[in-house]
């Protein structure tokens, strides 16, 4: 059975870029645990010979031609930006 502990919650929260409060961590340990327990019922089914259904349609080969369409105007690109500098989006310094 998949038991989800606080350490796992913290790791997943980092992957998902969510800062969780201690209270939320506790809550999710319990709630995600319940949901995952419910989901365990899938194990009852033998799916070894079943193909996964990754796509909701049977369509294939949908392409567009390599033809330009207009880009947005710069004002529109930056209109919703929380922070900008000149013609750029601005973010806290990214270090490598």
């Amino acid at each position, binding site marked *: 059975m998949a038991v989800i502990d606080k350490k796992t919650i913290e790791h997943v929260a980092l992957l998902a870029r969510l800062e969780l409060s201690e209270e939320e961590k506790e809550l999710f340990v319990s709630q995600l645990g319940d949901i995952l327990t419910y989901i365990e019922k899938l194990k009852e089914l033998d799916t070894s010979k079943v193909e996964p259904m990754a796509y909701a349609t049977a369509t294939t080969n949908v*392409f567009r031609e390599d033809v330009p369409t207009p*880009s947005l105007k710069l004002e529109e690109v930056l209109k919703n930006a929380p922070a900008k500098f000149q013609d750029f989006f601005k973010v806290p310094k990214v*270090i490598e």
Partner: protein
Amino acid sequence: MQHETIVGLETHAELLTETKLFCGCLNRFGASPNTLACPVCLGLPGVLPVINKKGFETALKAALALHCQINQFTTFDRKNYYYPDLPKNYQISQNYLNLGINGYLEIKYGGNKKRICIHNVHLEEEAGKLIHPESALGGGEDYSLVDFNRAGVPLLEIVTYPDMRGLEEVEAYMNTLKNVLLYTEVSDCKMQEGSLRFEASISLRPIGQEKLGNRVEIKNLNSMKAVLKALEYEMRRQKEVLESGETVSMETRLWSEPNERTERMRTKEEAHDYRYFPEPDLTPAVVEDRWLEKQRATLPELPLARRERFVAKYGLSDYDAGVLTEDKALADYFERCVTLHHSPKAVCNWVTNYVQRELNERRLEIKDFPVSPEMLVELVRLAETGDVSMPVAKEVFVEMVDTRKKAPQIVQERGLLQISDRAELESIIQEVIAENPNALADYKKGKKTALTFLVGQIMRKTKGKANPQMVNELLKKKLEAG
């Protein structure tokens, strides 16, 4: 202990298309920031991708050129990671069913030929560009800037097996691969613009040992030279680590050009977990046999095959053929000349020496070269028939590059036709001998250099126009007789 160096390369090449991979914004380098962006490539809420057919076919062509097995049912996956230049915080890429697998690239270096095996070739989207401005006081500002013009440009990733055993092989692989991508018009391969990029992984193992050593990945390699320098540094570093009895830690390192060394990445490398899953917004691509064969038919002759053909068909040396085919445009230029005037060796001599020198000195590309194959061939003919001497021909050539004038025009304007008239030459020889009695005396004493001196004087007097063979012949006769 002797160690063996094992290198694998990951290459990213931006594809030559008019528009981006999933939207109609232009795929162009150098536009003003954030002017080539739309809701789709900005990852606005609600938008959806649609694959650019040309981009897909270009990737297919590359996979075929690299002798890959094609997954005729190929799908796209989301690679999830957060980075400010990645608009959706996932990259649409391929993971489970790559377009091409198990290919190879044949390289030739020194006298050796070797196949470097390709693990996979797949299509994905570019990220935008992150800029780290310098502050006025020196050092970096406390912010970074993002330009999304590049976001969504079609990108091909080519991943080798760890098949390279030394820097010579790495260099040959990079050059050959670049050449293949240029030949097939898959990418413009401009490293300075970032349209061709390499990442290397390197490990060392004691000779004779089968198990691979711990691998280090190196990023931030902005030129082929940087790749080689970084690998050389890393070989040294890892050797020292191993010889001191320690183990090399598996990590990603960045090449620092100013410090000429690799440095461990500063960010915490939380276990990368890309959480790949099938991209539900795209449908699978099915490459039917007919489509595949049609793409295969568009493949041009590849550089190595062309090199071998130049040797067999034109009787060129392998070296010259290699020089010519290194650049598709140069090889095309050569072949055009040869079709106009079947004198492959002479043309090769002109192209590999004089044309290339002018290209290098003037930092020109062959497509912008002012002397067309038609113009060059006229000059080669003039030199061959003896209408102009070789030294004059070289001068004329330089002037052609400067002025875009044709050879006959320059020769005529400047009166440069070679003097091959016997009587005229004899009279000039007479004059020169008269002016240099000492030389004549020396010659008679058996000093052979006097002959060379006199030829030089004659050429000087005629401004290089005298037919050198005739001058030699007539002068000898005169001296013997005199």
